[in-house]
């Protein structure tokens, strides 16, 4: 009896000790860092960058906080998977951040719902004029909706052709004379394809994919930026999609699909170009720094994707990181100061250094021409090609329509259905046109404008 009582007491002590330790660990756990400048006005900044990127963003925030004594930007990294819904709920709940960095196609939908502050309300007349005059075309396309600017780009993404010089040389191709037409590039690709004894692909020379990327090269695209109308089932788009599908068929739809599925999605060191699975591929400017970090010995070059005969030069798809100010932001003015600081709309020479930290393409030529950025280009000469492509008007961005996400989803589906051989390219685009028209009709029935 006494033994049982002792045992019970021992268990009780053990449980109490554990509980005490748990409470102590909660109480003593390091809390969020205290503000460095509590006397200043707090500007709450949400973003989705993590790991090494978060470190860069934190450095930029620190640099801004050191640059003036009125505001303190406090950054919060929000998981990308739930960032948009968290933002929505914060706006609805009346407690949004003051500024948020985004890269998803959200501006039209959010602006249409009245969730975003037009930046014209925050910009001075001089700033608005400077943006209109100075900003690269891509930066303007990314942030606008119904003629108003809602997002200020702080890093543009462009795509270009990366080629492995060793692979080209081995195949008897001269890297110094990269093809000037898409047709010739395809011929190069065919010489670079490699197969095993069973006929499986072991290396793809060049395989074009993604309709949004190639349609502008054929003179197409999904939106007429001058007229402000969608252009889905058009002759240039049909030619572009047929070109993509024909190239897959040349290698074999099933064979390409199997080869692709054995490749990692391609972040960092597992990027198929870096591993040698692709000899020529199309990718974004951020790969330059990754190649320098993870494959410094790799010899490669970067060139603009050449257009087809009669197509458009320096064309393709663009997207980017941009900052938005939600309606109801308590410190919209402070948010604007931070956005200006980062984007380089003011003091571009100072902003240039920030872009080099992240390996981002700036929105303004003055930033690109600043000494800090030019030093960066000396260090990463392949990056220069992307900067040279920036002034082109031929970059197509997501169409600024209020059902932008729906449209992007349907475009992706049309692309995929054609690539898998389920639908002929013309049928896939006709289906896309029909679906979008149905969606517009559905929205009108529910009382939306378009």
């Amino acid at each position: 009896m006494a033994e049982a009582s002792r045992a019970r007491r021992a268990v009780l002590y053990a449980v109490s000790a554990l509980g005490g330790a748990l409470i102590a660990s909660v109480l003593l756990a390091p809390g969020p860092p205290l503000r460095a400048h509590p006397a200043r006005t707090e500007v709450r900044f949400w973003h989705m960058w993590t790991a090494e990127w978060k470190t860069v963003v934190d450095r930029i925030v620190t640099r801004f906080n050191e640059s003036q004594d009125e505001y303190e930007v406090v950054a919060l990294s929000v998981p990308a998977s739930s960032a948009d819904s968290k933002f929505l709920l914060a706006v609805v709940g009346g407690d949004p951040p003051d500024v948020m960095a985004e890269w998803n196609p959200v501006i039209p939908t959010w602006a249409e719902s009245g969730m975003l502050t037009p930046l014209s309300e925050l910009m001075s007349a001089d700033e608005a004029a400077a943006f209109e005059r100075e900003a690269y075309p891509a930066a303007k396309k990314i942030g606008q909706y119904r003629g108003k600017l809602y997002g200020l780009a702080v890093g543009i993404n462009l795509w270009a052709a990366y080629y492995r010089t060793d692979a080209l040389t081995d195949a008897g191709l001269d890297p110094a004379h990269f093809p000037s037409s898409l047709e010739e590039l395809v011929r190069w690709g065919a010489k670079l394809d490699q197969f095993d004894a069973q006929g499986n692909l072991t290396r793809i020379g060049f395989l074009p994919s993604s309709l949004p990327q190639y349609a502008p090269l054929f003179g197409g695209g999904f939106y007429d930026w001058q007229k402000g109308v969608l252009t889905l089932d058009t002759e240039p788009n049909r030619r572009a999609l047929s070109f993509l599908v024909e190239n897959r068929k040349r290698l074999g739809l099933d064979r390409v699909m199997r080869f692709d599925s054995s490749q990692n999605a391609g972040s960092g060191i597992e990027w198929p170009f870096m591993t040698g699975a692709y000899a020529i591929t199309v990718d974004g400017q951020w790969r330059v720094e990754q190649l320098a970090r993870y494959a410094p010995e790799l010899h490669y070059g970067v060139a603009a994707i050449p257009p087809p005969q009669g197509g458009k030069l320096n064309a393709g798809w663009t997207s980017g990181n941009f900052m938005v100010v939600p309606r109801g932001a308590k410190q919209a003015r402070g948010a604007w100061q931070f956005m200006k600081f980062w984007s380089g709309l003011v003091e571009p020479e100072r902003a240039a250094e920030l872009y080099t930290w992240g390996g981002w393409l700036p929105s303004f030529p003055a930033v690109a021409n600043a000494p800090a950025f030019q030093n960066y280009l000396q260090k990463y000469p392949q990056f220069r090609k992307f900067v040279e492509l920036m002034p082109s008007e031929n970059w197509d961005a997501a169409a600024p329509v209020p059902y932008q996400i729906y449209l992007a989803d349907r475009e992706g589906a049309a692309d995929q259905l054609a690539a898998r051989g389920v639908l002929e390219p013309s049928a896939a685009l006709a289906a896309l046109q029909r679906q979008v028209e149905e969606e517009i009709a559905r929205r009108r029935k529910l009382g939306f404008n378009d």
Partner: protein
Amino acid sequence: MLVRALRKALPGLLFISPWLFGFAAFTAGPFLVSVYLSFTRYDIVSAPRWVGLENYAVLATDPVFWRSLELTLLYTAVAAPIAVIAGVALSLLLNFEVRGIGVYRTIFFLPSIVPTVATTVVFVWVLNPQIGLVNGLLRGIGVVGPAWLKEPKWTFASLILMAVWGVGGTMVTYLAGLKDIPVYLYEAALIDGASALQRLRFVTLPLLTPVIFFNLVMGVIASFQYFTQAYMLLNQQAPEEATRFLAVYLFERAWRYLDMGYASAMAWVLFGLVAVVTSLLFLSQKKWVHYG
């Protein structure tokens, strides 16, 4: 009388009040509000705008809705019975009192407690057409395996495979049901000269039907709400013809396109469907479920 009953129930109600409050605020409340929202145009941010029956009318002509409904019904019709058959078969095997049976039961139960997301990620690799385990094994016997998650019919088959993989959860309930069957019934059947198959057909299965019925109803409801695996595969570039289930489309409309009114209407149609099918199952049970 009522006051006395309430007074008697009060301590109990107080004890469960946190749950009652949570249920009212987070389940019953939104449930009722969604009825109203289904008659509105609502994007979360702006106030809901009354559109009458327009959401339901538009839904009736929405081809994506009909395709996703068709896929959901097909999945329910295939996955729910297969899950029952696999669960019963597995429980019959694991009902044998052999050495180490506890270990076997644990092994078969384990997949059902692995988070769905983790299981799906593993399956994406296992079913990879080039470097996946399944096609590797098939290659070993000279068969070129299919592109599991790239072709609609094989993607659908993969989803069924994943459903069977997690059948260990229901297996436990079948095992409990089997243990509940009185031994004397088997003894009587043996004396009457019933074979093993006859004992299964005329003793085991009839007495297991309450558990089968329960699992079938739960399985059908879960199939109608099928979401996680399909949504993950859709985001992994699996064909949308085999992954855009009704719940996935509903989620897209609600949270991707901010069309809460339309999504609410869809949710109520889904609820109606589940209610009808479940009612039919309940009506049918008189004919095939034996409660001892």
